[in-house]
């Protein structure tokens, strides 16, 4: 068990602390003539650094990309030390930070390890092709990030002599690296004194300083950057930044912060406010009043109809996929041929199914390109609706209606279809290839699951899909696999 942390350490400070405060006064301009709203004083900064780092060294999580040479965790698996070369270390930090954006730590672990196996160094990544990078990223979402990583790696190879720069400004110039990532890399890998601001830091800082107002408004973002830059520890900036984010992720959580465990509770204005009101404070001020919650714009609703077209030649079925344009949503990824479906028009829309005609038209075009017999009216009858699923992108809630159709073709037509170029690039993925299917985006895999559910009773599969769609939209719902290990079924010895 951890020792309880004394509250109100400001009284009776040690002389060592005084020295630290003096150091802080020297190193940052505290207060000043300009806007001082919410800024920390030197004493607070020294105290905060000391407490946060001490807490972090004992409580930090053990993650594949994390290096804390000061760790006091007894159970830590020492793991490989950080790469000797700062540029190599910077690359690891970069990959982990990019993956962690908008994505849960649990999910990132496996992806990070696989990525590092595929591209151990920046030079390896710079030589990679986008197709393979996208495949490795499959399922992680926000595919733009993968493309940016690749473009960034090429930029470093071509413009920076193959070595990661160590300064925030230089890092910021790399495509895909913004202020956050640049500061994170500079502080963690190069030990530069640069603060970071992400969702976790915003939460922690706005509670510590009881900052009202929309935290994402430009003036407030600026304030958070200033706060973050002023508190970051001079000796261990990387650890301090990670400690601040870790605190936000594990203790200073959005809904039920564990203030009792918080190393910074003596400095927390939001907590003081809550305590002044009284212990049983139903309806009184709460730590969770900060940061101010801003209603997000609801996502746009969109419906598309896609066709899982299975092309069979010589007894082996293949999914026909086409490539998305190089720009925009899911740029350059593979998907089933699909068409947008207009908004639902009352009852009359039930027959024929919405968008079916357009979809048949599209399939006709694609297959015609493959010098097949025209995909005639008969083909349209072959299409069978198997259900629909929902997928939520950051700003779009997309419903996909899935049709299924299978087609027998001869070897020649199969060859053409397998690699059509031009405006509509096509690709065939064997139905039974687990690896091939795993490299596809989540949306495509959901459609495949509907297709595979065909063998079962349709109504059951539809019910399941509805459930799954819902569970997937809810990021807070954990899966049992994260808690329980896999075991073998009891088998009889043969």
């Amino acid at each position: 068990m951890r020792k309880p942390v004394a509250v109100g350490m400001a009284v009776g400070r040690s002389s060592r602390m005084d020295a630290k405060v003096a150091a802080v006064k020297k190193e940052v301009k505290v207060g000043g003539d300009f806007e001082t709203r919410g800024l920390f004083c030197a004493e607070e900064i020294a105290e905060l650094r000391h407490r946060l780092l001490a807490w972090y060294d004992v409580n930090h999580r053990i993650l594949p990309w994390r290096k804390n040479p000061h760790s006091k965790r007894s159970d830590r698996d020492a793991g490989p030390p950080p790469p000797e070369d700062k540029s190599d270390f910077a690359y690891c930090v970069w990959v982990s930070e990019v993956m962690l954006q908008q994505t849960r730590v649990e999910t990132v672990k496996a992806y990070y390890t696989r990525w590092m196996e595929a591209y151990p160094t920046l030079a390896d990544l710079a030589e990679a092709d986008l197709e393979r990078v996208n495949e490795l990223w499959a399922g992680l979402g926000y595919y733009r990030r993968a493309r940016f990583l690749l473009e960034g790696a090429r930029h470093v190879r071509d413009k920076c002599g193959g070595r990661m720069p160590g300064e925030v400004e230089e890092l910021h110039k790399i495509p895909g690296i913004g202020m956050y990532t640049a500061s994170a890399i500079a502080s963690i890998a190069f030990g530069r004194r640069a603060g970071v601001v992400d969702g976790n830091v915003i939460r922690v800082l706005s509670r510590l300083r009881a900052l009202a107002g929309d935290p994402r408004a430009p003036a407030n973002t600026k304030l958070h950057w200033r706060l973050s830059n002023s508190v970051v520890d001079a000796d261990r900036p990387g650890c301090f930044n990670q400690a601040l984010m870790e605190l936000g992720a594990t203790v200073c959580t959005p809904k039920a912060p564990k203030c009792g465990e918080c190393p910074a509770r003596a400095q927390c204005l939001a907590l003081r406010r809550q305590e002044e009101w009284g212990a049983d404070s139903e309806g009184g001020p709460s730590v969770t009043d900060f940061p101010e919650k801003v209603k997000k714009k609801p996502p746009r609703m969109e419906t598309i109809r896609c066709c899982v077209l299975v092309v069979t030649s010589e007894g082996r079925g293949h999914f026909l996929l086409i490539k998305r344009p190089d720009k925009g949503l899911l740029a350059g990824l593979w998907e089933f041929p699909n068409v947008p479906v207009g908004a639902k028009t009352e009852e009359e829309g039930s027959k024929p199914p919405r968008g079916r005609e357009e979809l048949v038209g599209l399939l006709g075009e694609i297959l015609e390109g493959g010098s097949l017999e025209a995909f005639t009216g008969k083909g349209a009858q072959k299409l069978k609706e198997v259900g629909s699923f929902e997928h939520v992108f950051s700003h779009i809630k997309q419903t996909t209606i899935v049709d299924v159709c299978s087609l027998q073709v001869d070897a020649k037509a199969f060859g053409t279809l397998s690699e059509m170029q031009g405006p509509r690039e096509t690709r065939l993925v064997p139905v039974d290839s687990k690896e091939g299917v795993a490299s596809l985006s989540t949306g495509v895999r959901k459609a495949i699951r509907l297709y595979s559910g065909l063998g079962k009773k349709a109504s059951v599969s539809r019910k399941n899909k509805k459930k799954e769609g819902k569970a997937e939209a809810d990021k807070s719902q954990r899966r049992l696999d994260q808690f329980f290990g896999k075991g073998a079924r009891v088998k009889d010895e043969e």
Partner: protein
Amino acid sequence: MFEARLLQGNLLKKVLDSIKDIITEGNFDCSPNGLSLQAMDSSHVSLIDILLESEGFEHYRCDRNIPMGLNITNLVKMLKCAGSDDIVTIKCEDKPDNVTFLFESKDNDKISDFEMKTMTIDDEHLLVPDQTYTAVVKMPSAEFQRLCRDMSAIGDTVHISVTKEGVRFSTTGDMGTANITVRPNPSADLKDEERTEVQITEPVSASFALRYLNSFTKATPLSPTVTLGMVPNLPVVVEYKIADMGHVRYYLAPKIEDEENGGAIEA
């Protein structure tokens, strides 16, 4: 070979009713100790763990472990053909292609038998650790069912917090919030199964999806009481004991608010 005869065939119907909303197929494991099943729902959020011990059967014979993969939907259909007082016998070979179900009416004036095809199910088996629970709550199962139903009229997620004083269930929805607190009532006037008991070593709280809890309460006819076991940051277990026979247990993963990087602010 495997053969088991159950006097209260109705029990089997109730067990199936308690799982049919959650899984569509499952491997029943027949072993010398009894008949068991472990299965997760398709989204891997909840897990069912059933045990029917061999002693609970009138006759039980099982020479070796036999996995019996069955389609639950079809099994439910088939069990509909059994009368509620029927005696049920289940039989199969060591490597079964079929499982035979025999229903005998109580007065022995009607005998029906059904043969059902088995299927190979590749499901993942999870190791559920033997846990000491930080908080254990025992309450009447009907009351728990009612509570879950009432909560889900308001919201999707229920926050359960257990303290010495009692168990507080709260939820929030579009129309507002609801809180229900259940207090331990050790009053001597109550029968054992009407009491609510709370045993804790320290207060625990966590959030769960009501949709799953609601489907767990389909097991209510199996037992007058239900027991919840909680450990911080781990799945909750909801247990219905089957008298003299075993249990139906459900494990449900908690909902935990974003533990993510929170979205970098690229200013």
